[in-house]
């Protein structure tokens, strides 16, 4: 009997390995679409990942389609910091693509008709476009003849800032144009519905460019840590804490670090510099660091949580805000009928909180903009930022991701820019309840780019002209700022 049970368990385990999805291993449907580039049509291979119209296009085929335009590029595979990186070298075209015979594409189409279901692994790696590194989920495909990679059409269009549109089952590219959100009805496109609630606005002026379900109460997971940072930062500034302090990890913090929610493994009684603990909390979302900071300031988690809720009221957040802990993990009430509680607020509340922090403590972006760093206090633990927008939107300076089963994938991000008068503005996006990290980063990317375009073309018009003659800047930073403002005033 025991042997029979053992065999069943082993069989189930083996079966599970083939069934359980690993790293977005899902099916794709192969097809070939017509891509019209400046009036000339090309056949481009496409993989529809998971569902129809979730289009991932062949980089090699797009290179061929763009070969006679100023957007021409060559695909180069390389590595960067030990990970695969694809470089789109602008201005050159692969000789292989130049020699490509269209009759081959006819054969491929026939193959597609015969067998168009495939199972490739979609994974996140770097793609360098125009000198900037982007981190996208892509689908690499290689066979003995060819190495190719498929990238989401929307992300490709945004990263290359190319005028791309789809209708009548065709893709249209105007190689001389730029990506223009004015052509898109965000709501009609369904972008906002990729998350439970979302918002984009100018955190400096409070102007909201777009929001969807922004009054809905949502679980906020690790975006909680923005409030934790605010409390700690104010304690440092008013002397209750010092930047030279060390933090001691309690037994509870150590337990968290050793659990599935742990990020940096610590032992009870272990100490670390407070600056490293704050970095650990904000950059790699360390839950044990959050708890340790709370206990450092208030002696107990409960006392710190009380400060969090008081602060929420004092800065004008709604009555829908409730914090139970400083890190955002689910909390189980100690009762017979136990309940699972999570910190919650609305997207509007988080926009206000982010605006408050960026106004009073903009130095937070010094930490949240770091992509990767070593934390000396933790034996040079490499803290890697979980915010992919730091890669995908050059100029993004933070702020915080969050993930729990209930909250799903969340991201609060900020982009730093300037108005005509040289004042700093932060475009902030809030995305809660995206079904996975790819959807979270994609939705945030679209909203952020939408917000930037709105700021450039509309918000700047609200800034009055001072009437004073412009001074000649005498340093490079001044020159750059002044020329960028001139460009904005003369934007298309």
């Amino acid at each position, binding site marked *: 009997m025991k042997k029979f049970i053992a065999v069943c368990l082993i069989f189930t385990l083996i079966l599970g390995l083939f069934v359980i999805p690993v790293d977005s291993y899902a099916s794709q449907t192969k097809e070939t679409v017509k891509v019209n580039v400046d009036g000339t049509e090309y056949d481009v291979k496409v993989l529809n990942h998971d569902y129809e119209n979730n289009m991932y296009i062949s980089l090699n085929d797009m290179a061929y389609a763009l070969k006679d335009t100023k957007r021409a590029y060559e695909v180069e595979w390389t590595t960067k910091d030990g990970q695969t990186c694809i470089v789109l070298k602008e201005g050159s075209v692969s000789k292989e693509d130049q020699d490509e015979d269209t009759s081959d594409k006819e054969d491929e189409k026939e193959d597609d008709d015969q067998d168009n279901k495939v199972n490739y692994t979609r994974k996140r790696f770097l793609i360098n476009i125009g000198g900037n590194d982007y981190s996208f989920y892509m689908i690499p495909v290689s066979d003995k003849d060819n190495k190719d990679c498929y990238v989401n059409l929307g992300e490709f269009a945004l990263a290359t*800032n190319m005028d791309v549109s789809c209708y009548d089952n065709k893709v249209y590219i105007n190689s001389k144009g730029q990506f223009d959100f004015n052509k898109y009805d965000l709501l009609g496109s369904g972008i906002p519905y990729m998350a439970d609630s979302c918002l984009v606005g100018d955190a400096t002026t409070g102007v909201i460019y777009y929001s969807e379900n922004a009054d809905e109460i949502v679980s906020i997971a690790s975006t909680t840590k923005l409030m934790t940072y605010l409390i700690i930062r104010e304690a440092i500034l008013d002397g209750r804490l010092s930047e030279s302090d060390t933090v001691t990890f309690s037994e509870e913090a150590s337990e968290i670090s050793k659990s599935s929610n742990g990020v940096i493994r610590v032992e009870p009684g272990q100490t670390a510099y407070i600056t490293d603990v704050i970095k650990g909390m904000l950059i790699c979302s360390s839950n044990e660091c959050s708890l340790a900071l709370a206990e450092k300031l208030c002696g107990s988690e409960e006392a710190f949580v009380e400060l969090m809720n008081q602060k929420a009221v004092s800065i004008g957040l709604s009555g829908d805000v409730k914090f139970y802990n400083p890190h955002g993990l689910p909390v189980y009430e100690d009762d017979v009928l136990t309940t699972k509680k999570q910190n919650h607020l609305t997207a509007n509340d988080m926009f206000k909180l982010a605006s408050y922090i960026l106004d009073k403590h903009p130095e937070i972006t010094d930490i949240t903009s770091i992509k990767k760093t070593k934390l000396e206090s933790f034996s040079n633990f490499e803290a890697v930022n979980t915010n992919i927008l730091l890669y995908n939107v050059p100029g993004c300076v933070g702020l915080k991701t969050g993930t729990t089963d209930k909250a799903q994938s969340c991201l609060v991000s900020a982009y730093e*820019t300037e108005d005509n008068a040289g004042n700093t503005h932060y475009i902030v996006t809030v995305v809660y309840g995206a079904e996975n990290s790819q959807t979270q980063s994609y939705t945030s990317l679209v909203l952020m780019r939408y917000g930037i375009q709105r700021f450039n073309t509309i918000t700047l018009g609200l800034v009055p002209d001072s009437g004073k003659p412009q001074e000649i800047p005498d340093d490079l930073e001044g020159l*750059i700022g002044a*020329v960028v403002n001139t460009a904005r005033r003369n*934007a298309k």
Partner: protein
Amino acid sequence: MRSRKKKRSAILVIVLLIILIIGMATAGVLLCLYGKSQMLTGEWERKIDVTDTVRENIRGYIAESTLIDEINIDDYLGTIEVESNLVITKEGSMKEGISYESYYDANEKAYDALENIVTYLLESRIKSNYIETDMTTDELIKETVGTDLEQYLKAHGPVLMPTIEELETLYGTDASYIADREKITISNTGGDEENCDYAITNGMLVIDRKDGGVIYHKNENKQQEAVEGDEDI
């Protein structure tokens, strides 16, 4: 009688041979001594590399406005050199000075490099702000500061090159000299003296000065005759 005549002829031949040998030897010695130092006279030139100074001045100017590793300055810079001319006269004077024309060319090249770097930074910042405009970068700069970028950088930007005065102090010479086959003694107007080895091979003059070996090339555009010692370079 005949034997005496023969003896006199033999002695004459020997004396003539001795005179000839001595004469040739003397000529050879004089040629080695005097001829070698004659080859010294004329105009020589060398290139002074100021690339490091220009690079550091550019780096200091752009430091606050660039991300680490955003720009490799050497991709824009190349080698910046200034020409120095050395005139050695047969009367025993040496004068070396900086070529104004080459200094001007080097300065232009340095500012060209800076202009290209700043243009790249401006275009990069405009692009990262997702701003699209019909104006070119040159037009944007002109509208912003009223002049083109080159004029702006020369008026408000950094000094890139060492000054001519600094170069003259480091590399200039105003001295008298005495030279033999291998050694040259240079007496500077300040009063101090340098005893240096020198060599001339394949149109190159190498003087082993106290600060290190200095290599000059013959200025083929000038005559190899000596020029007046007090003529301005």
